[in-house]
């Protein structure tokens, strides 16, 4: 039993196997995500009741909260995968970590932008130094640093390891940053209206929100799988199977 | 004579080119391994893998395999003199030498240091800033470490130690290397010069397959 499990794990960490096995997985994940997101967003936009204090602008929540949640989760995932890569020298883990970065950046940008847009009708200004927005901004900067470091390194293998170390330092720092920014925020503006903490949510609002979070999560998984597959092809391009795959892809186009 | 180093199935590729593969060898006390090969054949990379600096080489390296107590790269027993000589230009040869030894935990009486510097031909240059020295003299500052006798050190890994030296200095260093090996040390070196002696074994990289 244990043996089979270990063998199964090793298969998955081999780039070739991952490449083959992840293909149907990303396909189904993608469709499940689409289904969930269409349901969640149509529900959220059209069928969820209006929020008493913020009016219809609260409907931004169905994008804002999932994006914010995912951007933090992806950063944590990058750090974990970096650690796995550094400790067990699993290349695949580095590949996936690298390809998580652009997806994470897109989520952080979405969270920041929707937060700012939501701020306009709620606070009357596009930008408020609100604790959540500020720490999201810092998170975006951390992401951009990771990406810049990857691009600056000449050898991709060094980029992998360097970015893993940076992500680990960042992930240790992230709670401290969040705590400090929250503390700073309460010090400076005690009475802002918190945007993402409405009073206990109506089930008609909560359900689409949860569905949307799940949808974002599955979509992210699908995107990361697809991108990781391409990263594998690029890095393993000298292996025969990857050459063959690239040949095939060239013929199709 | 006990084994100092075993290298097992080393493999290295760079820029889509295999530099060496399935490279295995064992070195014992008293051996001198002379690594040969054209520029870019991976000699420096191999040395750096042996001392544990490079991670572009796959395969297994074990130092002192019979000694169960030592770690993977027992730094206290190995001296590595790289192509970049690790000579800090703002420090005098004496300060450089003392610092290099201190990093390995050795404190050597000053007169030994002066002696070693004199042996490599730096008499009179001991306490001027190293940036006033010529390139050859700077290399000698790095090599002076080899002329300080420290019994704890069992292996030397030398990257092109003979370049930029004059004929006299080359002979002196060759003698020193042979003497170290005869005392039970082990030397791995790259060099475009040859080194002669019964203990010398050659290994050529980059031979077209």
């Amino acid at each position, binding site marked *: 039993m244990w043996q089979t499990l270990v063998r199964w794990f090793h298969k998955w960490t081999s780039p070739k196997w991952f490449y083959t096995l992840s293909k149907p997985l990303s396909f189904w994940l993608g469709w499940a995500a689409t289904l969930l997101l269409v349901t969640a967003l149509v529900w959220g936009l059209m069928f969820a009741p209006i929020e008493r204090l913020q009016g219809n602008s609260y409907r931004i929540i169905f994008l804002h909260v999932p994006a914010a949640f995912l951007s933090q989760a992806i950063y944590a995932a990058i750090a974990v995968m970096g650690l796995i890569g550094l400790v067990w020298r699993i290349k695949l883990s580095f590949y996936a970590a690298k390809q998580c970065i652009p997806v994470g950046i897109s989520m952080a940008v979405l969270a920041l932008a929707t937060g700012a847009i939501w701020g306009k009708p709620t606070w009357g200004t596009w930008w408020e130094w609100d604790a959540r927005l500020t720490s999201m901004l810092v998170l975006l900067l951390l992401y951009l640093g990771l990406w810049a470091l990857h691009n600056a390194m000449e050898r991709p293998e060094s980029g992998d390891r360097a970015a893993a170390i*940076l992500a680990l330092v960042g992930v240790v720092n992230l709670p401290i940053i969040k705590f400090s920014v929250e503390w700073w925020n309460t010090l400076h503006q005690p009475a802002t209206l918190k945007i993402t903490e409405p009073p206990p949510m109506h089930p008609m609002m909560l359900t689409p929100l949860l569905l949307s979070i799940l949808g974002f999560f599955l979509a992210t998984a699908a995107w990361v799988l697809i991108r990781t597959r391409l990263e594998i092809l690029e890095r393993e391009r000298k292996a025969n199977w990857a050459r063959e795959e690239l040949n095939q892809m060239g013929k199709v186009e | 004579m006990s084994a100092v180093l075993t290298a097992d199935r080393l493999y290295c590729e760079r820029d889509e080119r295999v530099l060496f593969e399935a490279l295995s060898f064992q070195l014992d006390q008293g051996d001198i391994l002379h690594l040969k090969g054209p520029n870019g054949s991976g000699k420096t990379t191999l040395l750096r893998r042996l001392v544990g600096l490079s991670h572009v080489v796959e395969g297994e390296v074990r130092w002192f395999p019979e000694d169960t107590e030592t770690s993977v790269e027992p730094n206290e027993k190995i001296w590595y003199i790289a192509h970049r000589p690790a*000579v*800090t230009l*703002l*420090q005098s040869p004496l300060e450089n030498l003392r610092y290099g030894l201190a990093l390995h935990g050795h404190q050597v009486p000053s007169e030994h240091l002066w002696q070693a510097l004199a042996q490599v031909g730096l008499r009179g240059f001991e306490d001027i800033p190293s940036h006033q020295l010529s390139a050859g003299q700077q290399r000698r500052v790095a090599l002076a470490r080899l002329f300080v006798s420290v019994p704890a050190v069992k292996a030397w890994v030398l990257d092109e130690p003979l370049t930029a030296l004059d004929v006299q200095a080359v002979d002196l260093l060759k003698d020193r290397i042979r003497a170290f090996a005869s005392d039970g040390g082990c030397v791995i070196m790259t060099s475009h010069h040859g080194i002669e002696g019964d203990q010398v074994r050659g290994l050529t990289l980059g031979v077209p397959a």
Partner: protein
Amino acid sequence: MTMTAILARVLRRELQLAYRRRADLVNPLLFFLIVVTLFPIGVTPDLDKLAEMAAGVLWVAALLANLLSLDLLFRSDFEDGSLEQLLLASTPPTLLVLCKVIAHWLVTGLPLTLLSPVLSVMLALPAGAVPLLMLTLALGTLTLSLIGGVGAALTVGLRKGGLLLTVLIMPMFVPVIIFGTAAVQAAGDGLPWAGQLALLAAMALGALVLTPLATVAALRIAVGD
């Protein structure tokens, strides 16, 4: 040689080198002075308003000055090959690196701290806050040097590492700057500041323990290429 003796030797070498490069060391101090001078010119010469910003301005300027000097932390050792020898030493490299970072603090963070009272007068910081400004700057710049050391190690092999270093490390300085300025401001307003100071000290301690590991790992990457 005992461990302490080795570490003392390394520290001594670093300070000696810093002394011989003393012209480089003046630059961060000059930078600090200039940034602080530019603020009243750019914002307002009104002393009441300046007093309100003083803590923040001094902290941001000190942070930037510190960042400016970080790029040099490992660069010359990397270029002449000393860094390889450091990683191959039989003394744990984490301790050696810690010595280097502490030396860096002694020649940048500490002088910045000592210079800060003069500049705080120019910005009309309440006199009562000055001792705390110095204390927090001393602790804060140490943390900055420790965290910045990781960044310096990550970028040491790159030709244009300086700017990248700033991008990588700046976000991590956020907590230090928040609690540093808050403590000074609180002291200026006559409010309790012990909590902020304790947090700063905790961060310095945490960085002291954790960052050398990351720094050495990063240096191994730079050297291993």
